[in-house]
Structures are given as C-alpha cells and as structure tokens.
C-alpha cells in the first residue's frame, strides 16, 4: 500500500485509528492486530489474528526502531500496530514548551 503524510488508517480488528506523520517512499504493509489497516473504516471488525499485546494508546506517537517512519494514534484500540511484520514502539514524550 502506498501511503503518505496525512493518510488516515483504520484497524480492521479494533477501534485503532492512526494518522501517518512520516513514511519512507517504499510500499509498506501496515497492520493492526495482524490484519492490514485500511483507509476506510470497516462496518464490521474482523477477529484479531495475532496475540493481543498492549494495544494502541490514543495520543501516542509510534515509530520504528530507526525512526524512519512515524504514526500518530488518533483513537486507541486493542490491536498492536506493526509495519512489515515488526511491531512499532511508542516514541518518548518530548520536552514541554517553554512558552506559548
């Protein structure tokens, strides 16, 4: 699937919704709970095909180990997010702003 910054992806197995912040120009296999994520929300969800882990947390940013890709979870769910079969990790929160 070819995705770009701003693309919204929906889990096929749970409530998870993510938005693409940064991706390399390759084809990526983005999955949640073991099934490919979709650009439209399915009316009925399928059963999760991999082991339930911690799931996704709304508001957290998810990155791969090399931080070449970054996704924002805009709605949390039970499924874990993976790209090309490797689970993404939560990016650590950055410094608070110094003034607004």
């Amino acid at each position: 699937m070819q995705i770009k910054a701003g693309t919204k992806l929906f889990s096929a197995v749970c409530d998870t919704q993510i938005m693409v912040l940064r991706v390399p120009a390759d084809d990526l296999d983005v999955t949640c709970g073991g099934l490919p994520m979709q650009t439209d929300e399915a009316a009925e969800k399928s059963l999760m095909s991999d082991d339930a882990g911690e799931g996704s947390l709304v508001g957290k940013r998810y990155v791969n180990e090399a931080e070449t890709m970054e996704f924002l979870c805009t709605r949390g769910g039970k499924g874990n997010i993976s790209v090309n079969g490797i689970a993404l990790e939560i990016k650590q929160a950055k410094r608070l702003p110094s003034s607004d």
Partner: protein
Amino acid sequence: MSFQHNDNTHAVNYAHTLLAGLNLPPLSDATFPDIHPAINNARSGVQGFLPSKNKIIPVALADYADGALLALKGIAGNHTLKNNLPESGAILLGERMALFNTQTGQPVSAGGSCHLFKALDGYLAINLARDEDTDLLPALTNGKVSAPIEKQMLENILKEFCIEDLIPRGRDLGLAIAPVTLPDYNSFDNWVEVSRSTTSQRPATTPPPLVVDLSSLWAGPLTGSLLASLGAEVIKVESSNRLDGARRNEDDPAGEREFYDLMNGGKKSFTCDFTTQNGRQQLLQLIECADIVIEASRPRALRQLGIHAEKMVAEKPGKVWLSLTAYGRGTATENIIGFGDDIGVAAGLSALMEIIHGQPLFVGDAIADPLGGLHGALAAWSCWMNGGGIIDLALYKVLGFALSQDPFLRDFNKSDLIRRTSDWTDIINMSNENLYSIREPIKTAPLPGHHNEEVLRKLDAL
C-alpha cells in the same frame, strides 16, 4: 454588564456575574475604582506597550480580569492573607510581555509560537509551541509541505486548504489550531462547570488546604500562586524528565526568571519520574492526600497513568479537583489541545480585530492564560469552601463567557463596536497614563525537587 454608567463599575458587575455562576451571593461591600475600560486595557499592557500606536481592543478585557480577582477577594472574606493577592487582575495580563520584552497586536503572538495563516476561505491560527509540532505539518497538509519547513512555504500551501478541512485534521493530530471567527456568544451559559462532590464536606478552618499543582506554563501555575497567596501550602509536582518548560536557567534573561518566580515562588517543588512504577506511586500518593489538585493536562494523560479524577474526589471528602483544559472535559472536546493565544483566537478576539481594524491580529499575550488562571483560583477556592468536587474549567469558555457579557458582542453590532473603538481611541489619545507597575516576586522559585525529602517524609508519616 452594560456600558452605561451605573452604580457599579464593570469589574464589580462582572464579579457578581461570576459569583452567580457558582451559586454564590453578590459581594456585600464591593468597591472598585471606576476606571474607563479603554484606560484599564491600555494600562494593563494587554494592547502592548505603545498604547497610542497600537490597535484598540474594543472589549473590556482588563475589567474582566479585575472582576475575577475582586470576586476571589470577596469570597476570601476577612481572610487576612487576601492582602497578599495582587492589587488588581488587570496588572496580570501584560506582566509576561513586560518581563519578556515582547509585543502584541501582530499576526504573530507575543510568545512567538502562534501564527495567523490565510486559508482558502478565511484565516486560522496554528500554535507551534512544542518542538515536535512542526513534524505534524506534513500530515496537516496531506504531505504537501515537507521538512525542512519554511514559513513562506507553509503560508503558500495553507492557502489551498479550507478551514473546515484543516481544523478537524489539525485537532486529530494534536495541534493547537483555531479558526479566526466569532463564536456564537449566546452559547456560553456559564464560565465553569462544577460537579459537587458526593462526599461533600466543609473544610476545617485550619490547617490551610494542601494544594498539589501538576500544571505548567501560565494558567495553572497562576491559579496555584494565587492560592498560595491565600495561605495554601502548594506543592508543585513535575515529572523529573519532563519539567515545566517555563523553568529558566541562570543564563536566561532576568525578566524571564522573574516571571517564573512570580508564578511559582511561593510553592514547594517535588519531582519524581512519572515513567517509573515508584514515581507513579509517589504521584498517586500526593494526589490522594491533596485537598486541592490543579492540573492542566488532557484527562487521558492522567487516566493513562491510572489516575481518575472522579475516583480521587469520591475517596476523600471535600477534595477539589481543578481540571483546566482548552475546550472542556467530555469526549467531544477533552482531547483538543490549546494554548493561551490560539484559545484567544477561538474565542473570537482576532476575528474582532479583523472586523474593526481590517486585519486579524493577536490580542494580548496568551490572553486565555492569565484570565483562566484568575478564574481558576476563584473556582477552586469557592469549591474548597463549599465541600469539594470536580471543576471543569475550559479556558475557551472562560474567555467566551466574559466576552458574551458585552452586549455589542452578544447581539453582534458592528456599527456600535466601531463607534466604541473610535471613542476609546480618543480617550487613549487624550490620556497620558502609565502602565501599571509590574509585580515583584516575593520569593525565588525553588530548584526542581528542592523539597523532595521533606515531601517524602510527609508521605511516609501518613
């Protein structure tokens, strides 16, 4: 509130309105100098520091700040410590600009992070306050801008997008983003929502309440500092790896350090690591023993740490939980972030400037912050005296409600507003009054974690 002359000044009338919103009676002996709202605005610095050269704001912002502080002084009753409170609310509006030497009334906020942009069908404000906010701009523009992002490029690209497309996507992304538009001022029913505690209990008169202040930057810390002035013991709690960004170092300009001292000088400092089990346990214990909790995070942030306001308030009779958010608790709004300047835009101030002066501009410095902090202290102290509960204080609603007290905004009347602007401009041009003098910090704010041992001893003794 009306702008015809009557027995009460605007500030007194507004104080009564705020108290009515808390189901409290009006002040019995309120007196407040009858300052013209135009002069009060100018002296407060909310229009910037060259009043005659700046664009008049034809709404009584400084009077609303005065009214909120007056109401707080009113409910503090004969409390001897109330003399420690600032002289007026108005002086708080411009103090950060004065200390940071910044300027308002421009298309960029005084703090420098909030920008007004033109979209296809109107203007919007985007506040890029956090370093990583810039990373969100490619997603906001469907990949049309990419790093490194230059402002000119962003300006050009945003012109291709519609407001109704950008605002929801920006908010999904967690950006502080707001349209330049006048809200429906008739929609602001009240300035605060208080859910009274089911375990309501009147507080003991002594000792003074223990306040745990989890907030950072301006609005929440200001509330905490006002409660400290009223004698509360305030512990400022920060995650040791994510300190209040407003903290300053020795080599920062003196004015910036002074502002931090004004907000946090009278507090104790406790730090622990929210990412460790031990740190989270200490945080939970502190919150459990607090009489008043001040927090300005999105509700999900504390929930993700296993801390639930409802449960905390139910478990300790009389506990007050002050939740400061941009747009209010509840699923529709609680995840939307906002800072003082973009909330000012959302509440209609920049649209008002566009209507009156032909150009959308920022009004004041993070205007929703000092106003929100003042209103927060009023809500928290009154809730504490009346048995506790959860206070849902949305900065957007505070500012929107205050502005909705103005009949020219409530029943929007452009020609009356233009006439008022011209009257107020004449008044400012004819008067030659100084800015209010800036407050001086009573104490230097403690270094991060300065009171850790003392606080831990206290927790162990419980």
